[in-house]
C-alpha cells in the first residue's frame, strides 16, 4: 500500500479556525459567510465559528482584514509558493485561476480566455483567493491574471463569485494607478450544464423524475426541453438517462470513459479508482498521490454512472469507490443521498456476480481533513479482508 494508506487516521482537526488573539471583531467574516457559520458573541466580545455549519469555502479566510482566520486548504502562503514552484514548467506569464466547479478541463478554459500557454490554478471556489494572492503573483512577475468564476447565481458557495467580481474591479483600479494597464485581471464567468440530444431521447421522463431543480420538461408534443437557468449541473439525469440522450458539459460520458483506462494504466496494484464529488474533499495543491489511487473528480456524486464503475472494473481496478458529500453538506438539492441509492443498486448487481465488495461508498466533508484518506484506507482493508475470505 502506498504512503497515503499506511498513515494513521488523522485527528479530527477542523479545517478553519478563528484566532482570537488576532481578531479585531470587525465581523466582516460573519457578514460574508454564506452559511451563517460565524456569529458575533457580543457578551463575550468574540467571534464564534460553528464548524458544523461551515462549508469550508474559504471566503472568510480571504476577507479577514486582521488575518485572524486560519485554513488548512489553499492558504495565501501555500498558493504563492505552489505557483512559484510550478511556474517554470508552464513557461508562461499568464495565470488562470479557476473554480473547479466551472473548469474541469484546462484546455477549454484556455480557449475561453484565448490563451494557449498559461499557469493553471484550480481551486474550489475562486472566492477563497484573496487580494494578497493576486497582488503577490503580480509582484512575482505574472503579467496577466485571468479568473474564471461560476455564474453568480450558480456559485455553489453563493457569495464566492460575486465577491470575486467586486475584488477584481477594486484591484484593477489599483493596479491601473500603479501602471499595470487598464485590465490586469480579467474575470469571466460560466456554468456547466446539461446538453440534450433530442434524436436519442425516448421521452421516458426519467430526467423529469430525478431532477431536483425542475429543469427538464417533457411534453407529448415537442418532447424534452431543459430550462438551463434552472439546471445546476449535478449530472444526476445524465447518469440515469436510459437512452444516453443527456450529457454534461466538460464531464461528458466519453471524456470520463477515456480517462478511466488512462488513469488505471498509470496506477500500481492494488488499484483503487475513486469517483469523488469535487466538493467532498480538497486535495493539497502539490500533494503526493498514492500510486494505488486514481481519482476522477465529478461535479457531484450524482454524476457517477454504472457504466463507468463497470468500465473501471473491466479495465483492471481492484476496487472502485464513490466519495460523496454527506447529505447535509450536499451542494445540490439532496443529490448526494440519491447517488448513494444509485451506487447501492450497482453494488447489489455486482454482489450477484461475486464482486459486491469491490464497490465502496463513503460520504465525507472537507471540514475535517483526512476523511477521504481514512475512507479509502478502510475500503482497502475491507477489500483485503474479502480477498482473504475468498482464499480460505
Amino acid at each position, binding site marked *: 500500500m502506498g504512503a497515503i494508506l499506511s498513515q494513521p487516521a488523522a485527528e479530527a482537526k477542523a479545517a478553519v479556525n478563528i484566532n482570537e488573539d488576532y481578531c479585531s471583531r470587525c465581523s466582516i467574516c460573519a457578514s460574508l459567510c454564506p452559511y451563517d457559520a460565524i456569529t458575533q458573541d457580543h457578551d463575550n466580545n468574540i467571534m464564534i465559528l460553528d464548524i458544523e455549519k461551515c462549508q469550508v469555502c474559504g471566503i472568510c479566510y480571504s476577507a479577514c482584514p486582521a488575518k485572524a482566520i486560519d485554513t488548512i486548504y489553499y492558504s495565501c502562503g501555500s498558493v504563492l509558493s505552489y505557483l512559484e514552484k510550478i511556474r517554470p514548467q508552464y513557461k508562461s506569464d499568464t495565470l488562470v485561476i479557476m473554480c473547479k466547479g466551472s473548469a474541469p478541463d484546462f484546455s477549454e478554459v484556455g480557449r475561453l480566455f484565448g490563451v494557449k500557454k498559461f499557469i493553471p490554478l484550480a481551486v474550489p471556489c475562486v472566492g477563497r483567493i484573496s487580494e494578497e494572492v493576486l497582488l503577490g503573483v503580480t509582484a512575482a512577475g505574472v503579467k496577466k491574471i485571468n479568473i474564471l468564476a461560476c455564474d453568480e447565481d450558480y456559485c455553489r458557495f453563493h457569495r464566492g463569485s460575486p465577491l470575486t467580481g467586486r475584488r477584481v474591479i477594486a484591484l484593477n483600479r489599483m493596479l491601473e494607478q500603479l501602471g499595470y494597464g487598464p485590465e490586469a485581471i480579467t474575470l469571466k464567468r460560466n456554468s456547466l450544464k446539461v446538453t440534450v440530444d433530442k434524436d436519442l431521447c425516448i421521452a*421516458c421522463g*426519467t430526467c423529469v423524475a430525478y431532477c431536483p431543480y425542475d429543469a427538464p420538461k417533457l411534453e407529448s408534443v415537442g418532447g424534452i426541453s431543459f430550462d438551463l437557468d434552472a439546471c445546476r449541473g449535478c449530472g444526476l439525469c445524465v447518469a440515469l438517462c436510459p437512452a444516453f440522450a443527456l450529457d454534461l458539459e466538460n464531464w461528458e460520458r466519453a471524456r470520463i470513459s477515456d480517462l478511466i483506462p488512462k488513469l488505471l494504466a498509470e496506477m500500481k496494484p492494488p488499484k483503487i479508482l475513486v469517483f469523488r464529488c469535487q466538493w467532498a474533499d480538497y486535495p493539497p495543491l502539490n500533494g503526493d498521490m498514492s500510486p494505488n489511487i486514481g481519482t476522477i473528480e465529478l461535479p457531484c456524486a450524482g454524476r457517477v454512472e454504472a*457504466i463507468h464503475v463497470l468500465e473501471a472494473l473491466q479495465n483492471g481496478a481492484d476496487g472502485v469507490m464513490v466519495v460523496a458529500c454527506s447529505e447535509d453538506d450536499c451542494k445540490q438539492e439532496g443529490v448526494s443521498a440519491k447517488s448513494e441509492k444509485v451506487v447501492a443498486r450497482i453494488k447489489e*448487481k*455486482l454482489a450477484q456476480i461475486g464482486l459486491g465488495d469491490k464497490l465502496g461508498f463513503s460520504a465525507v466533508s472537507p471540514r475535517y481533513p483526512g476523511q477521504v484518506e481514512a475512507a479509502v484506507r478502510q475500503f482497502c482493508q475491507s477489500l483485503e479482508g474479502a480477498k482473504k475470505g475468498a482464499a480460505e
Partner: protein
Amino acid sequence: MIVTTLKPLDEILESISPYRRILIAGCDGCTQPPRGIREAKTLKQLLELAGQLKGQEFEFKVTSVVKQCDSVLTTSAIKPYVADVEAVLSLACGAGPQTVAEFFPDLPVIPAQNSHFIGIDNRQEDQMFDGCSACGDCILALTGGICPVTRCSKGLLNGACGGASNGKCELDPERDCGWELIYERLKRLGRLDLIKKFTPAKDYSAKGWRVTP
C-alpha cells in the same frame, strides 16, 4: 406501465451459457426507467465481468427497440443482427421475448426480466404498485377510479369484506384495503351512492386473448 425487475444474474448466465454471440435487446417502451440502451450496455458489462470470473467468453452486441412488443419495430431492429448472433437476450417484459420468438422462429430468445404487473409508478415514494389486472371489463367508473379487482387482495367486486383493520387488509397487514380506499374516495367525491350499486360477477371471457384494434 409494465413493471419488471431484472432476473438474478446467475439465472441469466445459466440461460445464456450455451451461446457465445448474443444480442442484448433493450426496450424503450413501458417500464420506468425503460430498459433501453443503457440497461443493455450495463448488463453487457456485468455479464462480461461474470463471464471472466467463470472463464466463459461472450461476444455481446447491444441494441434497443422502441417497443419490443411491436412486431414491425422488433423485426426491423433485430434483423440486422440475426446473421451474427446465436441468441437474443431480451430486456423487455414477457411480451418482448415472445414477439422475438414469433417473428424469428430459428433464434433462441432468453428473458432478462421478470414481469410483475401493470403498475402505478409512485415516484415520490420510489415504489410501483399493481394497478390493473387487464380484466377486459373496466369498472373504475363505479369505484372512484380505484380498481377492486387489483387493489382488493380478494378481488371482490362488491366490498368491503369486513376483514380489514385500521385500513389494512386482513391477508396482508402491509397492504391498504382496496375497498376502504374506494369508500374514502367516493365519500370525498360525494358519490357514496355508487358503493350501494351491485356489480354482478365478472364475465372473464371479455378479457379475451386476441383483440383487433
